[in-house]
C-alpha cells in the first residue's frame, strides 16, 4: 500500500520549488502503535494510536524551510508545499523525474505484532510480574511495559530520489523496586528490536528476572568509591559510553559548526590500535536498524574508528552535500513533524579477543560498571557524565561488593586514549536517543571494555 501516489509527489515537489531552492523533499508517514503496562499487579493503560502526516522541506544554500501537516490528503500536501515555498526567495526550479523507489536493507519480521492477539500481550505482562516477584521477598514493586510501533514511510526528493521503508519495532521493559533494611533500590532491563513478536519467543520473562536481580543486588550495595580508578565497562548497555562520549561528537552537524571536540581530527590516532568502532543501521533486526534512513538513503555500516584512527563522521544529505561526500545513511527524524539531522543508528565497538574475566583480573582496585542509567555529553568539549545503575567494586582482580550511586565523569578523547582492553562478547541494547528535541530509537552496544582510569564520583566521602 502506498501513502502518496508518485504523480502527486511530483506535483508537490514542483509546488515546493515554485519559488526556488536547491532541493525539495516530501516525507510521508503512517505510524501506529500499541502499548500496555502492568503496575502494582494490575494490567493498565492499554493504548492504541494511529497518525498520518507529511513534512515538506526546501533547502536553499544553508537555509532550510519546512512545514508539516497532519493527514495525507492531496489538498493538505499541496497546501503545505505552497506555504513552505512562500518563505523562499528565488526563481522556480524544475524537480527531476522520480526514480523507482529503493527500499534498502531488509529487516524481516516473522510475526507482525499487530497480528498477535492483544490478550496474549497482557498475559506476557502477568508472567513477567510473577517472575520478578518470585526473585525474592524484598521485591516490592514491579512495573512491566510492552510497546509495539509500526512506521510506514515514503520519501521523494527533487533530485529524483524515491524510497520507502516499513519499520516494526517491539520492546519489553521491566522495572523492579526492592526494599529491605530501610533501603529502596531499583533495577531495570529491556529487550527490543526492529523485529516482530518472534523476539519474545524465548523466555521473555528473563527480562523481569534480570531487573529483579539487579534491584536485589543493590540492596546489599556499599557507597561508591570516589577518585580516579580503572573501570571495566559491561557489554550491551555499557555501549552508551561510546554513544555519548564519541558518537554524538561525530555527527556532522556538530562537526561543521566546530561544536565538536572531534572536528578536524579525521585520520588521527585517537585510541590504541586494537580499537575499532562502527555505526551500522543495516545490521539485521537491530533496534536502531532501518532499511533506508528518513531521507531515503539506504542504511549501511560506517567504520568510525579503525584500528584506533578516526575514519568517518556521520552524515545526512544536507551535511554530506556541504562537504561533497556521500550521506552515510544517518539522516533520521522522530516523525513527520520533524526535519532530519545526522543521528546514530546502532553504534558499537568491534569485539576483541579478551574475555570479561581477563579484563577484570588485571585490575587491582577499580569499578566494574555493568550497566548505566543513562548519560549526557557536551559535544563541544567532549565532557561526559554517566550514572552507573549496576556496578561493583573490583578488588585484587575479582568482582566484590555491589556499589550504589556511582557516576563516571570524564572526557571522550581522554577515555578513548585510556582504553586498554576489549573482550569478544559484543551485544547491542535498546536505547532512546534525544537531540534537538527529537527522540529516535538507537542501538548502543559493545563487548566488555576496560578503561585505564576515569573519574568516579561516588557518594562515599
Amino acid at each position, binding site marked *: 500500500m502506498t501513502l502518496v501516489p508518485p504523480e502527486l509527489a511530483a506535483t508537490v515537489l514542483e509546488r515546493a520549488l515554485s519559488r526556488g531552492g536547491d532541493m525539495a523533499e516530501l516525507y510521508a508517514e503512517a505510524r501506529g502503535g500499541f502499548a500496555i503496562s502492568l*503496575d502494582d499487579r494490575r*494490567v493498565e493503560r492499554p493504548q*492504541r494510536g*494511529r497518525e498520518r502526516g507529511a513534512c515538506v522541506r526546501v533547502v536553499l544554500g544553508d537555509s532550510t524551510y519546512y512545514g508539516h501537516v497532519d493527514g495525507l490528503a492531496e489538498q493538505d500536501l499541496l497546501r503545505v508545499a505552497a506555504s513552505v515555498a512562500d518563505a523562499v526567495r528565488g526563481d522556480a526550479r524544475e524537480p527531476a523525474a522520480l526514480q523507482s523507489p529503493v527500499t534498502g536493507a531488509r529487516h524481516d519480521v516473522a510475526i507482525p505484532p499487530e497480528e498477535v492477539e492483544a490478550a496474549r500481550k*497482557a498475559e506476557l505482562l502477568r508472567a513477567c510480574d510473577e517472575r520478578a516477584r518470585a526473585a525474592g521477598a524484598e521485591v516490592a514493586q514491579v512495573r512491566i511495559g510492552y510497546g509495539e510501533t509500526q512506521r510506514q514511510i515514503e520519501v521523494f526528493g527533487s533530485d529524483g530520489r524515491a524510497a520507502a521503508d516499513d519499520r516494526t519495532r517491539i520492546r519489553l521493559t521491566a522495572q523492579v523496586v526492592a526494599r529491605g533494611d530501610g533501603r529502596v533500590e*531499583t533495577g531495570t532491563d529491556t529487550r527490543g528490536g526492529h523485529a516482530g513478536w518472534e523476539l519474545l519467543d524465548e523466555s521473555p520473562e528473563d527480562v523481569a528476572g534480570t531487573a529483579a536481580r539487579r534491584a536485589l543486588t543493590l540492596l546489599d550495595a556499599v557507597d561508591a568509591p570516589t577518585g580516579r580508578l580503572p573501570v571495566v565497562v559491561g557489554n550491551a548497555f555499557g555501549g552508551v559510553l561510546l554513544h555519548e562520549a564519541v558518537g554524538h561528537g561525530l555527527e556532522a552537524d556538530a562537526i561543521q559548526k566546530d561544536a565538536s571536540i572531534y572536528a578536524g581530527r579525521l585520520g588521527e590516532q585517537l585510541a590504541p590500535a586494537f580499537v575499532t568502532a562502527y555505526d551500522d543501521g543495516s545490521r539485521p533486526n537491530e533496534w536502531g536498524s532501518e532499511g533506508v534512513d528518513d531521507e531515503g538513503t539506504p542504511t549501511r555500516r560506517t567504520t568510525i574508528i579503525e584500528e584506533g584512527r578516526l575514519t568517518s563522521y556521520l552524515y545526512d544529505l544536507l551535511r554530506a552535500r556541504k562537504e561533497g561526500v556521500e550521506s552515510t545513511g544517518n539522516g533520521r527524524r522522530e516523525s513527520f513533524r520533524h526535519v532530519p539531522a545526522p543521528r546514530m543508528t546502532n553504534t558499537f565497538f568491534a569485539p576483541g579477543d579478551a574475555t570479561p574475566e581477563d579484563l577484570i583480573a588485571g585490575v587491582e582496585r577499580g569499578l566494574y560498571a555493568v550497566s548505566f542509567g*543513562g548519560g549526557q555529553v557536551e559535544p563541544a568539549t567532549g565532557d561526559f557524565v554517566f550514572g552507573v545503575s549496576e556496578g561493583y567494586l573490583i578488588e585484587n582482580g575479582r568482582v566484590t561488593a555491589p556499589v550504589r*550511586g556511582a*557516576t563516571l565523569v570524564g572526557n571522550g578523547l581522554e577515555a578513548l586514549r585510556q582504553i586498554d582492553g576489549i573482550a569478544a562478547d559484543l551485544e547491542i541494547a535498546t536505547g532512546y536517543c534525544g537531540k534537538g528535541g527529537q527522540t529516535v530509537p538507537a542501538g548502543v552496544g559493545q563487548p566488555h571494555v576496560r578503561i585505564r582510569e576515569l573519574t568516579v564520583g561516588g557518594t562515599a566521602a
Partner: protein
Amino acid sequence: MRLEGSARRAVEEALASGASDADAWVEESTTRRVRVYAGEVEGLSDAGAHGIGVRAFVGQRAGYAYGTDLSDDGLAEVARAAREAAELADEDEYAGLPDETGTSDVDGLASAEFGSWSTEQIVELTLEVDRAARSPQGITQVENSIYADAQGSVALANSRGLASSYRATQAWAYSSAFAGAGADLMTGLGVGMGRDPGELDPEAIGLEAAERALALVGARQPASRRCPVVLDAFVAASFIGFIGAMASADAVQRGRSLFAGREGEEVADPALRLADVGSEPDGPSSAPFDGEGTPTRSTPLIEDGRLLGFLYDSRTARKAGGSSTGNAGRGSYRTPPSVGTTNLVVEAGELELAELAARVGEGLYVTDVAGLHSGVNPVSGTFSVGASGRLIENGEFGTPVREITIASDLVSMLKAVRFVGSEARWVPFGGSVKTPPLMVAEMALSGS
C-alpha cells in the same frame, strides 16, 4: 465551538460502541520555529497539527486511543479503538470520570498581541538574540539561537455533559554560546519565555548565554571536598522538578515516592516554601482545567518545613478519599491523563545572589548540571550528577570549575536548604518551575 463539537462527537461514538463512560481531548495548534546560526537563518518552519485522544471506560476498566483523523470516520475509529483497549485492562475500583468538573479563572493565557508578529519580525528577533550572544569579547562562537512559538486550542468533553475549551499562546527563545576554544571551550545557555514575542528580551537572552559561558572560561577540576553549595535558578529548578514528582499521589500510592506516608511531617528546612500553581496567568503550564476537566488551583506542598499534601487526579483522589487538586496532566492527545505537576513555584526569599555567596564563605556555586536522568534515583532519592560552576572563595565567586560531580540525596538536600534567594524566575527545566537560587548547607563535591 468546532473542537468541542469534535470532542462531543467522539464521546457519543465511544458510548455507541459500548463504553459506559468516556472523555475526549482534542487539540489544534500551529507552531513557528526560527533557527539562526552565524548571523543567518538556518531553519524556518511554520506548521499545523491536530489530534484527538479518547479515554473509554467499560465498567471499571479504562482504555485509550488517539489519532490525527478528525473526520467523522476518524473520530469513530479512535472511539472504537479506545473501547476495545479497555477490555484488556484489569478492573480498577477507582477508575472513572471526575466527580466534579469546571474551570478556574485564568486570564491572559492567550496574548492578543501574538497574532500581530509576522514571520519577518520573529526572524529579526532571533537575529537580535544571536547578535547579543556574539557581542561580548571572548565569545568564540554561538552554536545557535532559536525562537519558537505556538498558538493552539484544546477542547474536552465527557459523557457526563462536560464540554469546555480554551486557547493559549506561548513564545520562547534560547541561545547557546561558546567561550574559549579547544580543550578549554565552555558553553552557556540563555533563555526567555512569554505569552507573545513582545514579552521576550532578545538582548538579555543573548547576553545571558554569553555571560554564562564566559564565567566558566579557564575551568579546572578542583579537589574533592564537602562544602556548602549555591544552586543557581537553572539548577535549582531541575532539582525542584524531582521534588514535584515525589509529591505525585500516584507515585505515593504506588510506593514509589520518598514522601509516601510522610504527610504532615517535617521534610524540609522552613526556609523552603513550595507550591504547585496551575492557575497563575504567567505560569507556562497554567490552564483553566486539567486533563480530565477539574478546575486548576494552587496547592501548597511544603510550608514551615512540613509536607502539606500531595497532587491528585480524580483516580488517586478517590483512592485516598479526598478530592482532585486539578493535577491530571496531559502531555498531548497521545497520552491519557495522569498525575503531574503544573507550575512549581518556590517562594522567593530575602537574599540576593551575592549575599548568598557571602553566607557560604567557602563553597561551590553550581550553574550547570548534567546527567540528571541517570544520576538521580527518584525512588531512593540518592543522586550524583555532573556539574560545573565556580568555587566560592572568601564569600565571592572565584575559580571556575568543571568535571565534578555533586552528590547527596533529595531528602537531605531539602533539609539542608538554608537560604532562598530573592531573584526568582521562570525556567523551562524540571518541567515548568519558578525559583530563585538556593543555598544548601552541604553536598559532597567529587573532583580530583
